[in-house]
Structures are given as C-alpha cells and as structure tokens.
C-alpha cells in the first residue's frame, strides 16, 4: 500500500493564515478610518471655532452703530446710521484715559478682544481720511493677540457744531490668537 506523505494539517494552516491576514487587513482599515475621522473632526472643530469668533465680531459690529452713547439724536429721535462726532471724540478720550480705567473696563465686557476705529472719509478737508480709535483691547494686557477678522460698517457722522455731515465707516477688528 502506498503511503500518503502529505501532512494533514496543511489546509488548517492555510485557513489560519487567511484569518490572520483578514484580521490584519481589517485592523489596518480601522486605523486608516480612525485617522481619517480624526482629521475630519479636527477640521470641523476648527471651523466651529473660527465661525464663533466671526460671530462675536459680527455681534460687536452690529451693536456699535446702535450705541446710544454714540448715536445722533434730533428732537429726541435717533437718526438711522448716524453717529455724533463729538460723542465719538468724548468716548475715545474716556477709553484712553490712563488715570481712570473704569470706562475701558465697562466697555471691555461688550467689545472684548477687538479694536473699533471710526473713519471720516468724505468730504475731506485736507484730502486725507481722519481716523479715531474708539476702543482697542491691545491697550490692555492682551499683547500676544493677532488680528484675524475685520468688518467695515458704513455710517454718516454729524458734526453739529460746524453743521456738516461726513460719510464714514466703523471698522471693527477682532483680535484672536492663532
């Protein structure tokens, strides 16, 4: 009788090898999937963060033209898209007052990490635009921040002393790290 020399465990070994290979491939696929998912969720978090920063600057840009401290009033009626030049100057001086920081601290709750500039653009007396910084959080301790967002809002500025109205802009800049 002819003896069969083939080992009987060969087929089982192949199946075990297949199982190991399948498990290995599945694990590689899982790792790739996790890396991909991690990247997608990280970019989503970054998007949400930048959108929330944008929204906070938008909120400030929306609020500044409506501040009663700056708006024009004629016969106790407030004027649309109008700021009073002398109120702007007074507020700017109050914010820059280094001996009394109470105005800056009060408005810091509303304006947070931002810079608000009022620009007088037209008509110009010397041919150059006139800027006045209303609020700048860099005046405080926030020296490491970087500007990332800028929103211009058109307005008109009334000079009630010289009876002149200027076209201008409120420039709101958001300071954010990174």
């Amino acid at each position, binding site marked *: 009788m002819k003896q069969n020399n083939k080992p009987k465990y060969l087929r089982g070994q192949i199946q075990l090898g297949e199982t190991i290979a399948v498990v290995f491939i599945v694990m590689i696929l899982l790792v790739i999937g996790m890396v991909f998912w991690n990247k997608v969720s990280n970019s989503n978090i970054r*998007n949400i963060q930048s*959108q929330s920063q*944008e*929204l906070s*600057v*938008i909120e400030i*840009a929306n609020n500044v*033209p409506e501040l009663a401290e700056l708006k024009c009033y004629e016969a106790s009626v407030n*004027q*649309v*898209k*109008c700021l009073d030049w002398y109120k702007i100057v007074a507020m700017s001086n109050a914010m820059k007052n280094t001996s009394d920081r109470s105005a800056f601290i009060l408005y810091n709750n509303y304006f947070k990490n931002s810079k608000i500039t009022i620009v007088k*653009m*037209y*008509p*110009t007396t010397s041919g150059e*635009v006139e800027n006045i910084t209303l609020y700048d959080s860099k005046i405080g301790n926030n020296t490491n921040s970087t500007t990332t*967002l800028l*929103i*211009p*809002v*058109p*307005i*008109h500025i*009334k000079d009630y002393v010289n*009876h*002149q*109205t*200027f*076209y201008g*802009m409120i420039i709101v800049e958001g300071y954010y790290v990174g």
Partner: protein
Amino acid sequence: MKRKSKYSLRKSGQIETFGLAFIVILIIVGFFIYISFRSHQTQDNPQKDFTNDKLANDFVLSILDVSVEGCEVFSVEDLIKDCARDHRIKCGEEDSCIAVNRSIVTMLNQTFMSRRIKFRFYSSNIYFDSKDLINVNYLNCTPTSRQGQRGVATIPLYPAPGSVYLNINICYQ
C-alpha cells in the same frame, strides 16, 4: 457521499473573489463620491455675508445725509432732489447732477473699489443728459452676473410726484 469536483470548487472560489472585488470597488466609489461632495460643498462664511450685507444696505442709507464737497450746505439727498426736479442748485460751476454724481462715485471708490468688491450701483427715475444719473459697474458686475446682497434707498420727490431710487447690487466673486 458525492464530493465536489475540483472544477466546481474553483468556480465557487472565483465567484467569491468577484463578489469581494465588487464590494471593494463599491466602497472605493462611495468614498470618492463622498470626498467630491464634501469638496464641492460651499462653506458658510458669516463674516463675508454680513460684511457684504452691511456694505450694500448701510451704504445707500448713509450717503443720503452727507454734505457734498464744494457745497457743504447741501446734502446728497438735496442735490438728487434738485437734479430730478428743477436744477436750481449750483456747486461752484457745477450743476447739482454733476456734483452729486462726483460725490457718490468718490464714496463708492472709498468703500468698494478700494476693497475690490464687485458691485453695480445705479439710479432709477433720475436722468442727466437723457441717461441714468449714475450707472457704475465695477469688475464686470452686470445684471447677468451672479447677484449677491443688495441695498435700495428711496428718495421721495415730494411735492413733485414720484421717487428716485438708488440701488446697489454686490456680485459674487
């Protein structure tokens, strides 16, 4: 017991392989569709939308009260009314229509052109030399372009009938 022939075993193995390949191809195709869908999705940009909205709406409302350079006692609105009605006001040597056109173009320049924002500014119901008083198309923003935010200011010509409209359309880049 009847055993499966070598041929039938090989055939069923081939079918399994084809099925696996088919599933893998399906997964890859699905993945590419997902990636292309994600890349074509326009991301929300609240800052740009808000800025364009504010620029369009607030610009037309803000310029009306502004004093015109060269005749500071009159506002843009006064000169527009005069240009549409009776041409009585003179700013130096200039007619009210020319003066108001010049002042609005200067403000458009400072606001939109300096930021390279595509826009179309035009007036309705007011004519100078039998043409619209103002019609500025910047960076090929025409009525057929993809329109974005818009703003309109209405200037009633009372006691004369009718109103003048100042329109601005911002075009998408």
